[in-house]
């Protein structure tokens, strides 16, 4: 399991990176954290002619809130995402990515550009209705979450384009739930719920080639009673509707029916969390 040969280019800036990618045609690949790319190379499932290492490009590691939106440089590592407190949903989601040694290298833009439908960050981007700033051979452009993901491991990005910044609106409320086989594994199914004002959005990961956005209702459903308690039946309705709306495939880790059941449960947990009640899923052990 040794990588095939490639040329290595340590980019000095965004323009340099883009120009190198452009010159490579469809034979170039960006090397950021490498946590998804290097295994693919080691398995010789891809053989790019040129790897453009952007880790030394200045200016891609910033993290700041402007207005209601967190702006992240492309190279912000998952560990930093998990440690920051300006976007609590992002912090929670990042803690579910792999393990510390993965999080210390993996980058926010790398995860989005890799576009694994089971990964946490694509779902978060969509649930927050975020966007990415993209640099390319021509002008820079801004791509919204809904347009970025076009299929499993496929994005709208061109061969010579790179994400330079991620814009992630900070929601007024959120919930996150994930079901994985083991600690740190990719999710079998995950759900992210957000509330911006009176609108809620629910995104399900792992049930389709791209993160699946549940059609948001027109206004916030009455998740809470007047006394502030969670309306279980309203949460269940949303979860049921979400489960009905997905067409998952069967694979090694679960049948389509099981994935649909998981969808119902992770959506229920995420929406309940959004509504303000933490869900407890551990029952105490008798003394």
């Amino acid at each position, binding site marked *: 399991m040794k990588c*095939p040969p490639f040329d290595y280019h340590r980019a000095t800036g965004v323009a340099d990176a883009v120009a190198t990618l452009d010159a490579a045609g469809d034979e170039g690949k960006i090397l950021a954290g490498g946590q998804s790319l*290097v295994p693919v190379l*080691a398995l010789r499932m891809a053989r790019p002619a040129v790897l453009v290492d952007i880790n030394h490009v200045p200016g891609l590691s910033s993290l700041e809130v402007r207005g209601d939106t967190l702006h992240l440089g492309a190279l912000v590592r998952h560990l930093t995402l998990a440690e920051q407190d300006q976007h609590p949903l992002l912090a929670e989601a990042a803690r579910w990515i792999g*393990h*510390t040694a*993965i999080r210390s290298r993996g980058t926010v833009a790398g995860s989005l550009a890799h576009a694994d439908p089971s990964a946490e960050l694509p779902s978060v981007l969509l649930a927050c209705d975020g966007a990415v700033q993209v640099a390319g051979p021509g002008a820079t452009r801004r791509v919204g979450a809904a347009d970025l993901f076009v299929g499993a491991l496929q994005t709208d990005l061109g061969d010579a384009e790179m994400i330079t910044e991620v814009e992630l609106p900070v929601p007024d409320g959120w919930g996150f739930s994930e079901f994985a086989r083991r600690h740190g594994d990719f999710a079998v199914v995950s759900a992210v719920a957000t509330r911006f004002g009176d609108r809620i959005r629910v995104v399900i990961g792992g049930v389709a080639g791209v993160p699946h956005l549940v059609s948001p209702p027109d206004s916030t459903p009455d998740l809470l009673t007047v006394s502030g308690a969670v309306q279980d039946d309203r949460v269940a309705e949303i979860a049921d509707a979400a489960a009905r709306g997905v067409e998952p495939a069967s694979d090694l880790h679960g049948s389509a029916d099981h994935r649909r059941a998981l969808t119902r449960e992770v959506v229920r947990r995420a929406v309940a969390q959004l509504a303000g009640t933490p869900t407890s899923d551990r029952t105490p052990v008798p003394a």
Partner: protein
Amino acid sequence: MQISLTVNGERHRVDVEPRRTLADALREDLGLTGTHLGCEHGVCGACTIVVDGRPVRACLMFAVQADGASIATVEGLAADDGTLHPLQEAFSRCHGLQCGACTPGMLMTALHLLDTEPAPSRDRIRAEMAGNICRCTGYVGIVDAVESAAARQRELAPEA
């Protein structure tokens, strides 16, 4: 490509192909075979080392990316006179190793954990060590060892 890296405080210059992983450069070019390879696709954690203060999978980083970096590997844990690091001592005492293949990665992962959290609970230890697969111990001895080493380190360096 010519690169230079500092491993356990010692500066090295090596000439590597761009595709050479940092793990292979350490093992093959520098002779530091303490860093082990268990899967070469970033899952098992055996090759975990510390690069510029953070744990990384040495199989998922190219050596050329470590140009100028400061690296800590298992070979640098014990003191020059052979005195074991409290983690090594605890792994031995608590039987946190059997065949030793996962051990370097376990130690380096635990090293970072104790650097960042001086008093982790057993659940925290289990969660944090879950990126490293051990096939021998059933993990009981490893969790015991990390817990015990943390206690020992707190004794040695009481809060100022």
